[in-house]
């Protein structure tokens, strides 16, 4: 008869270990059936569109959702096919992805990292989403990207402009089509030096969060390299609504250019204050005073009305690009036609980038012949493509950042309608906005297939 070794302490320890194991979310635990998380086994595949449906960026989120729905329609063979007709890869045939009908679920990021992670987690765990995409903020993108890395899901970032997304916070499972702060600075500086001269003194007002810092740094570095001097850089609270007390001292600071490293409501309000305080009409150091907005969003520029007239900035894409830049930017008109016919107005840059991301993901799966995130990542890394509206583009393997031409735009003096707010001043070639992948630090790590 053997002696029992069961003790009260042993039972407690075993219980604790078992409890901890059960408490780990199912997305982080192994499965004996599939080689990767949410392997689609039926006749359909589910994509997760995680966009701001409430909160300050809800209008951008709504435009992103329209583009996602259009992309799904095209992937499933509906509509006019949009940019699938101009895309350089012909792997997609309008028969879903790998023959599976594309379905989608949506989540609301609320432009809050915690809420965005919760909705992404729900789409992965409950809805079986095999890919997560979307977002209108870098904070959200970085948070959701990290979650997808842990969960073994591909994350195709939406509108996120901070260097960190594919810099210090980059992940092997995350990919960004949108451009970044560095590219904005590199594209803008030569144009600004050309139009306003090299002897300029800049005053920066910077939103007090991650994106603001990287944008200020990028524009400062680029403009100082052109000979500009930075007189001052002032952080402004993200929740600030009236910027008059920040703008009013600018005219007497010795500066002759005001750079507004603001986005969304901050940009609308600070620009409105700057124009109200007569900065557009003022002179300083014997020159006309100028204002620069490094990142333009057409949707949000509407809020500033006539105040955007004549003000330079950069953008990832614009619906008039093919008309202005020619056939190099093929795909733009196809997408505008497709989107415009369906919804009655031109798409925003947010809509464009998420449409591209959806097609790029589907195409990578099709080329890889698998939904396995590691196979998809391999298909995307170093992938060169064309026909998606931005000209020849590279998905760089080292940091999963897309490299393509960047648009320098200016607020139109006499817009003909509410969509006609920006005019393309210049298209900066990709060579001019490229950089070494190591300058922003971070480690890509290795791809995680999950289950």
């Amino acid at each position, binding site marked *: 008869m053997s002696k029992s070794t069961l003790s009260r302490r042993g039972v407690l320890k075993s219980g604790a270990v078992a409890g901890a194991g059960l408490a780990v979310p199912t997305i982080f635990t192994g499965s004996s059936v599939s080689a990767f998380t949410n392997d689609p086994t039926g006749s359909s595949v589910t994509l997760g569109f995680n966009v701001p449906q409430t909160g300050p960026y809800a209008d951008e989120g709504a435009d992103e959702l329209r583009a996602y729905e259009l992309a799904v329609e095209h992937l499933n063979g509906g509509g006019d096919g949009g940019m699938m007709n101009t895309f350089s890869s012909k792997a997609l045939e309008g028969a879903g992805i790998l023959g599976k009908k594309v379905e989608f679920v949506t989540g609301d990021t609320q432009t809050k990292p915690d809420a965005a992670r919760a909705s992404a987690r729900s789409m992965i765990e409950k809805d079986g989403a095999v890919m997560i995409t979307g977002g209108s903020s870098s904070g959200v993108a970085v948070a959701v990207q990290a979650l997808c890395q842990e969960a073994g899901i591909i994350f195709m970032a939406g509108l996120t402009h901070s260097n960190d997304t594919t810099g210090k916070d980059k992940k092997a499972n995350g990919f960004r089509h949108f451009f970044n702060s560095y590219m904005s600075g590199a594209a803008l500086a030569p144009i600004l030096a050309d139009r306003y001269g090299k002897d300029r003194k800049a005053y920066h007002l910077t939103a007090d969060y991650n994106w603001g810092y990287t944008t200020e740094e990028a524009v400062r570095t680029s403009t100082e390299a052109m000979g500009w001097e930075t007189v001052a850089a002032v952080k402004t609270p993200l929740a600030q609504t009236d910027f008059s007390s920040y703008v*009013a001292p600018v005219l007497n600071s010795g500066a002759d250019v005001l750079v507004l490293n603001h986005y969304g409501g901050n940009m609308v*309000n600070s620009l409105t204050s700057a124009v109200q305080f007569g900065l557009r009409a003022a002179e300083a150091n014997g020159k006309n005073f100028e204002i620069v907005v490094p990142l333009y969003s057409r949707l949000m520029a509407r809020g500033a009305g006539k105040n955007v007239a004549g003000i330079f900035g950069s953008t990832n894409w614009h619906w008039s690009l093919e008309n202005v830049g020619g056939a190099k930017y093929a795909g733009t008109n196809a997408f505008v036609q497709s989107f*415009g016919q369906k919804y009655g107005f031109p798409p925003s840059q947010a809509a464009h980038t998420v449409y591209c991301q959806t097609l790029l993901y589907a195409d990578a799966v099709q080329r890889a012949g698998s939904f396995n995130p590691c196979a998809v990542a391999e298909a995307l890394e170093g992938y060169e493509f064309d026909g998606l509206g931005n000209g020849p583009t590279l998905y760089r393997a080292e940091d999963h950042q897309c490299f393509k031409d960047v648009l320098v735009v200016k607020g139109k003096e006499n817009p003909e309608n509410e969509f006609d707010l920006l005019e393309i001043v210049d298209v900066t070639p990709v060579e001019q906005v490229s950089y070494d992948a190591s300058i922003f630090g971070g480690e890509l790590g290795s791809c995680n297939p999950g289950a």
Partner: protein
Amino acid sequence: MDQIILQILNGLDKGSAYALIALGLTLIFGTLGVVNFAHGALFMLGAFCTVTLSRILTLSHEVIDESRKDFLGNPLKVDVPYIYDWFGESTGAAIIDWAVPLSILFAIPVMIGIGVLMERGLVKHFYNRPHADQILVTFGLAIVLQEIIKYYFGANQIPAPAPEAFVGSFDFGAAVGFDAGAIIYPYWRIVYFCFAMVLIGAVFAFLQFTTFGMVVRAGMADRETVGLLGINIDRRFTIMFGIAAAVAGLAGVMYTPINSPNYHMGMDFLVISFVVVVVGGMGSLPGAVLAGFVLGILESFASMRQVIELLPGINQVVIYLAAIVILLTRPRGLLGRKGVMED
């Protein structure tokens, strides 16, 4: 020196908005004893009265212009406001240009109506409930109101510019002997400050020099006794709720050229306005106005680059620091009275 004057001027217009919202809050608290967290939403609704009137004035019919193309390459559909057809293009354009001031006339009845409806429909049921219940229900109402606005008007800001006559800035520096351009101040902000002064004066005059105001003041001091005299004080307090809503609404109407309105703008002002009320002294109308201007000016000074470099982050907390100091030294606020909210 010029920078100091400039920041005082900035503080005055910011303080005007704080004072107007806090004035309405104090009116409601003083008369009904209700802590109304939906008051910021009333400011926002006022701003959207301007947006609504602008849209009404620009209601249009489409005219096809074959000579121009839209973004799809089709003949351009040009929107022609009906008001052009009725009054001619120049008069019609002038009316649209003056949409913001005209919105005052539109907003007064609308905001009084909303105020009365809010009081009769919801707030009156919470008179005898704890302040925590009042805060919860009015805060919930504020969220409902802003979500309704977002549903109909979207999340982005909507421009509502000042009339052309008030676009631009006044060279205050040149006028008072400083260098030209040293102190520039936008015309519309001057208009806003003057408007706030007139509105605050009108509210005080109404309470001070009319029989209605006298009864309301008596009710604020001792509601029970006024009721025992056979006066229907509840009806008067309902009207005061409507007037307080109109004051907040008008503050919102005139604020639209300063900051393009969006659904969230009320929440941005709400917390600060409560701080203003507490600092001014609960139930004190002059206190609310004084604290509005004091905190507005302090906030402006704290936003100066030199101050931020000396005390990083001070621009984000100065109002709350000032509130702490004032409440430690004067526990009832600047002009608070003994016995108000102390039972």
